């Protein structure tokens, strides 16, 4: 039990600190956008407190749940055959933990139109959601968000960077 609680407390402390620093900056810049920064801190806090820690496996690097990114071909939102097993494991986790939530974050590479890449990232996230729903997870457990090309995993302007940026990340709250 001790091993489980340590990271939780740590995460909570980090959330509290980031919340404070956001608040500290609020007065220095225009209000609207900084509200967003406060929201960021609060979201982290909710994730930590939501009680989804029954299965130790999500924090175990050798667990099948440790792989949380899958990759896509250019212009495609089709999940590769090899990645289906990865999604099956996460779907099984959600089925066993009906309170658990995984946010599916869709991304694209930098090429082409930014708004089209938002749509492509969303299509990728929805393709993943659909597969996981077939495997017993519910839509409510799988909110999607697309960042398109706005948040590359790897900076760079060649295929090696692009192939790592066309992805869906499975985000467990607080991790």
């Amino acid at each position, binding site marked *: 039990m001790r091993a489980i609680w340590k990271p939780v407390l740590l995460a909570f402390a980090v959330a509290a600190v980031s919340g404070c620093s956001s608040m500290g900056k609020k007065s220095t810049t225009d209000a609207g956008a900084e509200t*967003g920064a406060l929201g960021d801190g609060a979201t982290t806090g909710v994730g930590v407190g939501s009680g989804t820690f029954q299965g130790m496996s999500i924090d175990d690097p050798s667990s099948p749940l440790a792989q949380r990114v899958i990759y896509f071909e250019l*212009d495609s939102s089709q999940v590769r055959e090899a990645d289906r097993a990865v999604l099956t494991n996460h779907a099984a986790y959600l089925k066993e933990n009906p309170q658990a939530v995984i946010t599916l974050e869709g991304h694209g590479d930098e090429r*082409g139109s930014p*708004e089209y890449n938002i749509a492509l990232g969303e299509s990728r996230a929805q393709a993943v959601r659909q597969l996981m729903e077939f495997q017993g997870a519910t839509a409510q457990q799988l909110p999607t968000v697309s960042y398109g090309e706005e948040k590359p995993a790897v900076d760079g302007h060649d295929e090696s960077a692009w192939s790592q940026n066309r992805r869906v990340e499975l985000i467990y709250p607080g991790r």
Partner: protein
Amino acid sequence: MIKIVRALLVGTLMSLWAVAAQAALTIEINQGVEGAVPIAVVPFGSSSPQALPQDVSAIIAADLQRSGRFAPLPANDLLSRPTEAAQVNFRDWRVLGVDSLVIGNIEPTGPDSYNIRFQVFDVLRGGQLIGYTVPATRAQLRRVAHQIADQIYEALTGERGAFNTKIAYVTTRGSGKVKQYELQIADSDGYGPSTVVRTKQPLMSPTWAPDASRIAYVSFEKRRAEIYMQDLRTGSRSKLASFSGINGAPSWSPDGTRLALTLSRDGNPEIYILRVADGSLTRLTQSPSIDTEPTWSPDGQSIVFTSDRGGGPQLYQVSAGGGQAQRLTFEGNYNASPDYSADGKRLSMVHRDGNGNYRIAVYELDTRMLRVVSEGRLDESPSLAPNGRMVIYAASDARGVLATSSVDGRAGQRLTFQEGAVREPAWSPFLPK
């Protein structure tokens, strides 16, 4: 042949914009354009005892050059520097091979006010085309210089100039997970930037209201895409769209009452029309594929958008009242991000060529001709000037910079943000008088 002009950090605070000025863009103008009409813009005279805060004639010459239609003679090549009509010897100017001549004078009328007189001559005919005197305060000098350039452009081409306009764009500072995004507005030549909104999460897709008083944009500040509308005079803003999934690609209707946008709340990305006054929504497209990036025809009757319903992204047109969409583009396997010109004659877009380069193309609706006008590898986000003769876009190879090009691909400039990247440009409509 690239001349670098450093942008000044303009100290004058423009009361029009809500937040103080930020670091400026650096401007590089491409010179030596083939087919441009030679013109002489003689440095304006001034009887002011103090140096003027702006070089009005240099601003005018740079504007004309950037259009790709004119090749101003370098100031060093001038044989004489007349400031009034009586001093003009047309034979001198014919020898230099210029077709048109611009002269002027700036007369102080008070401690911070001036009268700017300018005259445009047809060198070949040996007569004056236009001549005006325009009052300006010190703070208005740049704007008036752009207005004069618009007058000259119209007198010589028969088309309205678009130099006295604005651009909106997004700058990014920092790297990795710690970034700062700013939506900024500057003059069309990149001078005088001011910040509209600043966040730590991405900002995208600014779109101008037709009267240039408001801007709508996408913000991820709440860790998801939402569309906001902001009044540029007061800085006040309201949330327009925050449905589940995508809230993106806003495009203002020509009458200013509606926004076309992309939502994925009913599943996959579809085009909707949102009435600004009451937030009511009408769904425009119904397809299991991606539909996004709407742009209105200037008559408000139809909408052009990107869809991959045929396999890859191509442009389609649909009536603003809904119905069957018609495919517009067939050249290449990637055409996206359309922007309709204000005269309804053409569309700009991102086009992937046979070598995998993403370039800006201009599509003439009457001839159905697609013309590539940029030379980069990763060009995106084209936005046409309100006179439809120039396009601004983001060139994102290496670092993000903005570039402009004439719609025939002949001339341009690059706008570089020294502290980071600059993307997502949107050219304003004509500004109200």
